[in-house]
Every structure is written in structure tokens, then in C-alpha cells.
């Protein structure tokens, strides 16, 4: 007599989110189109800033942190839009909803995937920033990495929610930056200020306040994302 097949045991919220994250990273690895486009777009943006401001290296260096974050933010629109294009194709997101997968797990997995992608982009942009704008990370690269992690997380959480909203519209490419940029302005200010302090030194001990603010934005953005995303994909 054969033993009965074991009953399926559905994974919890975090394990489901991990499966979604692995799926997104695998799709990214398979196509590699998104990261290639992102890197070239971000590099072009950074070079355009330096052409627009002319050869004044002191002026360029002073604003390097801001330009780095503007390049990441502009590129994030491409990354976020693409992350929901693969879900719209063949109604794959509907397929996940109907399995069913907890919508919060879909949010966590996709937002984490977008954050990873932005971090990879940031890792490519940092040496370019240091070279093109002729600056050094005076407070050390680990601190710059910390700011990049917090900033990418702060972009990816609201970005994932708004990309899900925009993906349901025909004007998705226009709609996403219109929705996303206004809400990212406070985080962009904190990211730029923190990056500038890491690059040029922190004589007034301001870095802790700005990173604290970034942590606060992350708590707010991720909590709101968890609350709002299920309504976005269900309605």
C-alpha cells in the first residue's frame, strides 16, 4: 500500500515574497534588457549634467551627490515601469492573484526586486560619479553604500505601488513619473544631502539626522505600500 501524497503547505508571507523576488531577479537575468537600458540611460543623464554645467569641476563636484540621485531617480521610472510590463504581459499578475498569492507578498517581492536593481545601478554609477565629477567619498564608501541602500528602498516602495497603478493605464509611461516624482521629493532631498555629506565631509554632524529621516521615510513608504498595494491590484 502506498502512502497518501502529502498535502500542500502554503508558504507564509515572507517566503511567498521571496519566491516573487527570485522570480523577478530570474526574469531580469534572463532578459538583461532592463539593467542594460537603465545603466546606459543613467550614464547618459550623468554625462548630460556635466556637459550642461560646463568644465567647472568645483561646481560639478559640489553637486555630485544630487546628480547621482537625480540619475538614479530618472532611471527608476524605466525600471519600475518594466517590472510591471512583465506582469501585464499575458496577465501574469492576474495569474498570481488567482493562485492565490497574498497581495502584500507580491508587493514585498516586487519592491525588493526593484530595490536590488536600483542598487546594482547605483553600484555602477558611484565610480562614474567619483571619476566624472572629480570627488572622493571623504566619509568612506561603506557610508555611501548605506545611503544608497536607504535611498533605493525609499524609491522602490512607492515606485512599486505607482507602477502597479500606472500599468493599468494606456498612458502608463507618462503617468508613472507624474505620480511618483512629487512623492519622492522629500526622500530625494534627504538622499542628495546625505550623499553630499558623505562625499564632502560632515563638519556639522548632520549625516545622522539625514539618514534618520531616510529611515523614517522608508518606514512610512513601506507601511503605506503594504496597506495600499492590495487595493491597487484588486480594484
Amino acid at each position: 500500500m502506498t502512502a497518501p501524497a502529502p498535502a500542500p503547505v502554503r508558504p507564509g508571507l515572507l517566503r511567498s515574497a521571496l519566491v516573487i523576488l527570485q522570480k523577478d531577479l530570474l526574469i531580469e537575468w534572463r532578459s538583461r534588457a532592463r539593467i542594460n537600458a537603465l545603466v546606459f540611460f543613467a550614464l547618459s543623464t550623468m554625462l548630460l549634467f556635466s556637459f550642461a554645467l560646463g568644465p567647472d569641476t568645483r561646481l560639478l563636484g559640489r553637486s555630485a551627490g544630487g546628480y547621482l540621485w537625480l540619475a538614479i531617480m530618472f532611471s527608476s521610472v524605466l525600471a519600475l515601469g518594466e517590472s510591471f510590463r512583465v506582469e501585464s504581459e499575458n496577465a501574469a499578475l492576474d495569474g498570481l492573484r488567482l493562485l492565490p498569492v497574498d497581495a502584500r507578498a507580491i508587493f514585498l517581492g516586487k519592491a525588493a526586486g526593484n530595490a536590488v536593481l536600483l542598487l546594482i545601478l547605483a553600484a555602477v554609477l558611484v565610480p562614474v560619479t567619483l571619476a566624472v565629477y572629480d570627488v572622493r567619498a571623504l566619509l568612506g564608501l561603506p557610508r555611501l553604500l548605506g545611503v544608497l541602500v536607504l535611498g533605493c528602498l525609499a524609491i522602490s516602495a512607492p515606485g512599486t505601488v505607482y507602477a502597479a497603478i500606472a500599468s493599468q493605464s494606456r498612458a502608463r509611461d507618462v503617468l508613472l513619473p507624474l505620480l511618483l516624482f512629487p512623492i519622492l521629493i522629500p526622500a530625494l532631498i534627504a538622499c542628495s544631502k546625505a550623499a553630499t555629506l558623505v562625499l564632502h565631509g560632515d563638519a556639522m554632524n548632520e549625516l545622522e539626522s539625514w539618514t534618520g529621516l531616510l529611515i523614517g521615510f522608508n518606514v512610512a513608504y513601506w507601511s503605506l505600500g503594504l496597506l495600499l498595494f492590495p487595493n491597487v491590484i484588486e480594484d
Partner: protein
Amino acid sequence: MSTPAPALAIDAVDLSRRYGLRWALAKVNVRLETGQSLLLTGHNGSGKTTLLRVLAGAVPASTGKATIFGLDLATQRAAIRERVGLLTHSSYLYEDLSASENLLIPARLLGVPSPATRIRELLAQVGLEGRARDAVRQFSAGMRKRLSIARMLLKEPALALFDEPFGELDPGGIEQMESLIRALQQRGSTVVLATHLIEQGQSLCSQRLHLSGGRATAA
């Protein structure tokens, strides 16, 4: 002791769904006992797909009430989705992933035990065992349909909803699809089948509901 399955798999009263100003489904009543099969017929745009999507919990009904296995469609959608499988024109597949990866992700999300073995079995059942590693992007419409049904069968649904399951399939594929539906019926699944191939549908279903302009009418 396990709870016996409710006698009615579907009990829908005055089910309606509106898109903008247009009623895609208007006051449709469906009663189907557990283990029975229903054939849905009607012209294009008659409301068949909308009815299946509402019953699967993919979209909410605008008005009307329905229970699926005794669960309220308006308030217990997650529990209903666990029991229902829906095969539609949308394949739910990721183009850049291989056939086996497209099954592995839902298998892991569903907590299927020994997913690799189960996926091999399912791919063999739908005739795709030789294409397990190929990206879906390279698949024909018929192969995608086969992979979609394998994805649906991962869940072993108590209520299986099929929207044009024979579309895009070659004669061999149609035969295979028929035998997969019969196997589901033999396992006790309730089946709702929307198709224009009425002969095939009637050979698989004991009851029939004809839709026209979103309303149930005589065939």
C-alpha cells in the same frame, strides 16, 4: 473527520457585471451541484468570459449574490480562489522563463510537495516534456495553451473553469484536452466549460447554459 463538500458547487443569483455603462453580464442565475459539469455557450461578447471571471473571483460582481462551495463570493474571495482554477485566453505565463520555471513558481507559491516530480508529470501529461527548458517566448499558441492547463492542474482545482479550452489546439491537442478534462471530472472536480465547439462540449457536460447579450436565454 473532514467536513463533507457542500452539495452546490455554484449557487449564483442575479449575477451581473458592468464595465462602464455596458452590462457584460445581466442577472444570470447558475446552480451547479458538486461534481457536475456545465457547458456555457453563446456568441462572442455574450458574457461567457465575464461569467467565468466573476465565478473565479478574478473580478467582483457588480450586483447579485453567489456562493462557491458555500463560500460567499463577495467576502471570501481568497478562500474561493484556493479551490478554483481558471483557464482563459490569458496564459498567465512569463515569456522569459522556461516551461518548467513557469510551473515551478506557482508550485512553490502553492506549497506543492515534491514540485520537480509533479512538474515533470504535468509536462508529460500535456505533451511538453521535451520542451521543459525552452523559454515560453519560443512557444506556439497551442503550446502556451498546453502549458497553461498544466499550470492550472498544479492546483488540483475543485472547480475548474475553462474558457475556450480547445482554441489554438491541433486535433491531437483537442483530444488531449478532452482527456484532461475527463480526468478532472473523474477525480470529482466540478467543471464549467465555455466553448464554441458545442459537440465537444456536450460530450463533456451534462448541463448547458446559453448566454446572449449577457443574459441567460434558451439555446
